[in-house]
């Protein structure tokens, strides 16, 4: 009996040690517990175990304590729900300590007003949709892309200050580059400038900036929040550290993830802390499992961890990127077509002076969505998968009678019935088809 208890305890600790130290196992356990990104749901058996993944997020009405107490609860929740990222954070910490001349193998260039953009050097063959959008001249051309784009917003007094700050961030950037991110350090101290740069990036380099994540500290953190408030659909996530001003949550933000890291002394600024709490809680309001757990997190910064970019923020950005790489198809509105429609507008964005709390920002996202809906109604659903299918069934009169839209639904349903991640594989091979299929399913067309 004693031996059995001892053996069980040893096994439990062994499993915990694997989860704490082995990155792959930690990710696997999360995916076992939550399912895949597109169809996330709690595992029926695992959810009965007291695992960190199943901790319930604190809600607004749940705790009536002080702001500090609420923030502490949020901090505990964040630590638990992101426990799967600890091995990754260890790796990042180790990388920062040991990396020497980490950017030597990456290409650094200026993209007009954006200085010093570092790209991971990822390339893929152009598809028909890329040709249609004008991003490639012909199918098969090599296109440069990035799995995510990490932008650090700072304020540099002069060139040498900028260089100094860039040098500090080199190792962090290198770590992100190794994980498929493009990185840039943007010096900006006003909203107009920042919005202009971001809009230019989104409009001119959509393949690089598809999954844009912005990080700011102090005054720049507030600036980033304001930029997100102005145009939330541009960002996959915003990561802010010790913001100085309270910024209201954007009404239309349905998918931007939010992470705030604050020092304990800054809790004295009640309005800022309250705003962060509101941002985090609203960002978690999602019908999908992953964003409903990870969409908004608050964190109390650790004095001991004096890294250029906190490890927690890095882990959060990587998770956000992985999620949107697969699950972006769940959010058909405001994606590429909408982006295309808005590109011209974004070229000359005119931001307005923010005057809180009576500020009412022009809701361009709604316009974009409307234009997207129109596009969607008129689109011919032509994609690689449908073309291939028609080629294979060339002589079949039944197939030739079917419209592209019907074929998308038929093929998609067949793949969905196969299960076992087939849809995810198809999404990687032909994202356009996948987008069409999920959009049709979403709209019940």
């Amino acid at each position, binding site marked *: 009996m*004693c031996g059995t208890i001892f053996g069980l*305890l*040893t096994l439990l*600790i062994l499993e*915990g*040690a694997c*989860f*704490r*130290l082995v990155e792959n196992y930690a990710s696997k356990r999360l995916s076992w517990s939550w399912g895949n990104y597109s169809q996330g749901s709690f595992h029926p058996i695992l959810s009965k175990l007291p695992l960190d993944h199943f901790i319930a997020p604190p809600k607004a009405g749940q705790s009536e304590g002080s702001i500090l107490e609420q923030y502490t609860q949020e901090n505990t929740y964040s*630590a638990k729900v992101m*426990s799967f990222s*600890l091995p990754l*954070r*260890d790796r990042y*910490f*180790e990388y920062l*300590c040991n990396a020497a001349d980490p950017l030597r193998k990456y290409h650094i260039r200026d993209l007009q007003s954006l200085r010093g953009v570092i790209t991971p050097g990822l390339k893929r063959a152009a598809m028909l949709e890329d040709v249609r959008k004008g991003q490639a001249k012909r199918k098969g051309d090599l296109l440069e892309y990035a799995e995510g784009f990490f932008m650090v917003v700072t304020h540099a007094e002069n060139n040498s200050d900028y260089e100094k700050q860039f040098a500090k961030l080199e190792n962090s950037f290198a770590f992100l580059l190794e994980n498929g991110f493009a990185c840039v350090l943007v010096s900006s101290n006003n909203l107009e400038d920042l919005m202009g740069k971001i809009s230019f990036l989104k409009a001119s380099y959509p393949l690089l900036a598809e999954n844009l994540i912005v990080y700011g500290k102090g005054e720049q953190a507030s600036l980033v929040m304001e930029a997100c408030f102005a145009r939330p659909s541009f960002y996959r996530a915003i990561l802010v550290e010790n913001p100085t001003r309270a910024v209201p949550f954007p009404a239309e933000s349905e998918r931007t993830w939010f992470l705030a890291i604050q020092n304990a002394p800054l809790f004295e600024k009640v309005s800022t802390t309250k705003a962060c709490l509101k941002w985090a809680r609203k960002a978690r309001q999602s019908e999908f499992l992953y964003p409903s757990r990870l969409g908004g997190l608050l964190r109390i910064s650790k004095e*001991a*961890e004096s890294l250029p970019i906190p*490890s927690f923020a890095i882990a959060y950005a990587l998770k956000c990127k992985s999620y949107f790489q697969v699950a972006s198809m769940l959010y058909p509105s405001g994606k590429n077509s909408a982006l295309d429609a808005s590109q011209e507008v974004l070229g000359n964005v005119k931001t307005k002076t923010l005057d809180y709390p009576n500020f009412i920002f022009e809701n361009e996202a709604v316009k974009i969505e409307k234009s997207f809906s129109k596009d969607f109604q008129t689109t011919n659903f032509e994609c690689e998968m449908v073309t291939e299918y028609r080629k294979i069934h060339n002589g079949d009169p039944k197939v030739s009678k079917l419209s592209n839209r019907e074929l998308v639904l038929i093929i998609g349903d067949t793949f969905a019935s196969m299960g076992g991640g087939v849809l995810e594989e198809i999404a990687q091979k032909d994202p356009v088809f996948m987008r069409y299929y999920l959009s049709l399913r979403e709209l019940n067309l």
Partner: protein
Amino acid sequence: MVLFLLGSILEFHTFSLEYFTESLVNFRFMDYTLVEMLWLGKPESLVDHLTTLKYGLLAYLGAFSIILMVISFLPSLGIQLKVLSFVISIPALALLLGFWVRFINDDNLVSRSEKTDLFIVTILAYPSSVFLLWYGLHVKRKKLPLGDDSQYVAFQASRVHSTNNLNYPLDKSGGKEEQTGSEKGETLPLADDESTAESVSSELIEEGAENMKQEVANSQELVNDRVENIKIEESGDNESEIEEISDKISNDDASKTSESDGANRANHDNFSTNHGDEVHPHQESQNIKAEVKSNDD
């Protein structure tokens, strides 16, 4: 010893106690202080740290001293060692496993060197603690002492039963059945199984006693018959003939008894010792001889 050591350190300034305290306060493993590792809470200030460390260590040392004193009263060195190893292994395992639980649930970053340290500590501490625990709980099995009669009988009886069932000379059909049973592959009681052997041997002792009783009765009848025959046929006072007859009878008895093996002998001994009022066949023949002689007289 500790007091003597500390006293000598203070007296001879071998090394500064302040330095020792500082080392204890600054000691960190995987970013955990000694206080945290001993599950004494997380100190917020240096004074708090020192106080907790002082009282914590005092409590730990006090508890261990009491345990040592209790152990010293135990009867033998072997038991003392066993209890000591058990007492050491439990806190060692608790500390190690507790540390792992804390480490798994905490939110600290660790470097590769720290991971290596943790690995080394675990590799050394875990098997040692498990070994100590095993040694503390392990009870050595005693070997059977051969000098003890009853156990010797049990041992012999079980051996006999397992070889050829020589304890059943009169019941041939039973032996045959047993043989066929074993041929069919039925399991016979094993001699090395302690409990089975005990039960079998007690049965055998009883049956052996019954056999011996019957043998004695048979031989008594035989002797009586012979004596009567002699009386009728010869009705003479030939002393030498009577002696011959009685010798013959005793030889017969001896040859009968020599047929049975050590188990029978043992049973017989046991029987004779346990049943002092019963008469041995040889003794019986001697009695008959004496009786005949007196009759003749």
